[in-house]
């Protein structure tokens, strides 16, 4: 049986040593090389053509994300498992965008790294379990907010209310709107409350989203 050939990229010697030791216990794996930063990781990968690269995200010089992108682009057969301390879906998103197939947290390295390596080597994706829920949540949320059936009360608005709507959506303060429209701040507040009621908007966030959909902002003129 062919053993899985691994390249370990991490700028901390203790982590590299630990990984070597940990992976040495796995009879189906073999660490063929190490790299201390992103640049070296790319060079070593091109040279050794490993099956899987275990990649730290934050390293000196070219960081793990850039190195991942480079390796995935140039070695289609090589998979990358990100091994990081960042329990943060922002990094996860970036890593996946860069082309990583696995994402393992260092706190779970002992139990998950070997599994992850085997999974990605088969061409599948391995994520730290708590992230799966995050991604699922995002998926559901995107489905949820895409609500185009909302009834539109735009025609119910007076000219003044439309103007106030547009300026609020642009991020003007009530005072600025009042000055621009020659109204009192109080009146602007009233207009805003009334138009939000008419359009059934609960917050500024919804108001801005509504204005974007309606193309009420100048920079979104050619937009949705």
């Amino acid at each position, binding site marked *: 049986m062919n053993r899985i050939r691994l390249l370990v990229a*991490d700028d*901390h010697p*203790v*982590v590299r*040593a*630990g*990984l070597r*030791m*940990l992976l*040495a*216990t796995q009879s189906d794996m073999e660490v063929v090389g190490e790299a201390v930063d992103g640049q070296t990781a790319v060079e070593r990968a091109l040279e050794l053509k490993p099956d899987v690269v275990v990649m730290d*995200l*934050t390293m000196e010089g070219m*960081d793990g994300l850039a190195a991942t992108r480079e390796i995935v682009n140039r070695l289609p057969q090589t998979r990358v498992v990100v091994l990081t*301390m*960042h*329990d*943060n*879906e*922002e*990094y996860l*998103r*970036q890593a996946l965008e860069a082309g990583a197939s696995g994402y393992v947290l*260092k*706190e*779970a*390295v*002992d*139990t998950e790294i070997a599994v992850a390596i085997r999974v990605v080597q088969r061409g599948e994706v391995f994520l730290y379990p708590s992230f799966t829920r995050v991604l699922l949540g995002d998926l559901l949320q995107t489905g949820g907010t895409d609500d185009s059936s909302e009834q539109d009360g735009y025609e119910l608005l007076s000219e003044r209310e439309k103007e106030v709507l547009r300026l609020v959506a642009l*991020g003007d*303060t*009530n*005072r600025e709107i009042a000055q621009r429209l020659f109204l009192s701040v109080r009146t602007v*507040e009233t207009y805003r*409350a009334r138009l939000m009621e008419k359009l059934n908007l*609960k*917050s*500024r*966030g*919804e108001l*801005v*989203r509504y204005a*974007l*959909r309606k193309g009420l*902002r100048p*920079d*979104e003129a050619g*937009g*949705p």
Partner: protein
Amino acid sequence: MRTRAYYYHSLRFKITLSLLLSVIVILTVTSYLRYASFRQLLTESLTFPAASAEEIIEAQMVAYVRSRFILSVSTIVVIVLISDLMMSRMVVSRLKQFLSVVKRISPGNLDARVRVEGHDEIAELAQAFNRMTEELQRQNERLSTLNTLAATVGQSLNLKEVLHSALDEVLELTRLRAGWITLRDEPTEKSLIVASRGLPEGAVLAHAHCAWIQGVCAEVFQSGRPQVFHDGQRHACPAAEYLQKEGLVFRACVPLKSKDLVLGVMSLVGVASGSVWMFTEDSLDTLMAIGRQIGVAIENARLYEELQRKETLRRQLLERGITLQEEERGRIARELHDQIGQRLTSIIMTLGVLEEATSTTDWERNGTTDWERNGTTDGERACPERSRKNGWAAPEAQAHIQDVRDTTAQILKEVRDMALHLRPSVLDDLGLLAALRHYLKGYQNRARLLVDFQALGLDGKRLPPEVETALFRIAQEALTNVARHAQARSVTVLLEQREASAMLIVEDDGKGFDVARVVDSRPDEGNLGIHGMRERAALLGGTLTIESTPGRGTTVFVRIPLEGRKGDYEQNPAAGGG
């Protein structure tokens, strides 16, 4: 003063004289009338000789009484007419003219003067009145001089500008040729000309070497009293020679005082004392008042300069403080992350290997391992049988390793949270958008609030790092305030990059507060956070506005200009997001 000539011109003399004249006239007229009636009587008596003596006497009596009556009436009429004429000529018409002048003066036309005719009491009154008006006019001029000067020196807080405009103003008012203002330069103890007008070049140069130990300026400076030199009177001043050459023989030195402290000296020079601006005690008083005003202006300008210097310093210190704090937090966060985090990772991995080992090693056969030896007591080792019974069997050892491993993983998590709290690495690595998104996820759970986050015009772009840090910290502070005070159900966070500015809006639907009362009050524990946010925005040339209506929530608007900053925000300006 009351000479005979004066008496002849007085009104009383004139009236007496005119009365006397009228009496003479009346007497003349009366005598003529009496003479005429007698003649008539005699003519009649001669024409009618038949008349008896009684008849003649009676006729005479009648004629006499009639003439007397006519005489009295005509006398009275004449007296009335004459005195009316005289009164109107001498008094009434002149009083009327007087009145018209008074009427012109009262609204402020101090140029009006009463015409002085003759030398009587009314003329005297007119002269006194004119003198009073002149005095009034002078006082008025003095006040308006001071007023103009106050307005001039109050227009600017720049010391040089203030002194130059003050000097211009004073020269115009005094109609003197040249002037200069010297201030004491504390480090060199020399007098320093800070403003001069119309001064010969040699004089300026000569003055530059004035040691301010002796000389007229030093005297005025020490005494705080003005000095005036007429007609080339000798005085100690390095510039005197050059002034003489130019024919500038008049000189006045005025101390510039503020709160009884002499700050400098203003010197004014002119051609000759005869032709200069009314140089009396009074004008010296005016000059002293001018000196005080310029002194106050100098003091103000200096205080303002000091204030500005301190404000700049404060800004720099604040900026440095914030930068240092961020750097230090970042450094500690990285240290935690890199040093401690990686070592803990390595421990976890080692424990993983150990765990593996305990499950695969045949303990019974291989006997004790190093690890087991360390974990057992000497007594237990002495009795292998007991050791095996009471000591750790493989599953037990595995359980312990598992415990240590879990604890280590927990410590790693805590270290990571500490690092995140100090300064999220995501802010540096992935930018504000990712950092805010991540922060808001945690915030939503902690604060139990509905968070709506939108970012517009920012996709994939990074703002300049200092702007990202500032906006992140401001958002953190604003959101902490919402969680702590607002009792809100939901909060909207908008991040937008439009044109060349970055905007952040944090709006909650909580109970709101009286912004003016909290924000405009002196900084204290209660509103320090708000002032901190504002300072942070101001350091980057931005603004922070808070709008709130009690019962209707609070909105924090932050705008930071991006012109002239490094970042990739300039690219792809048309990008919008939905």
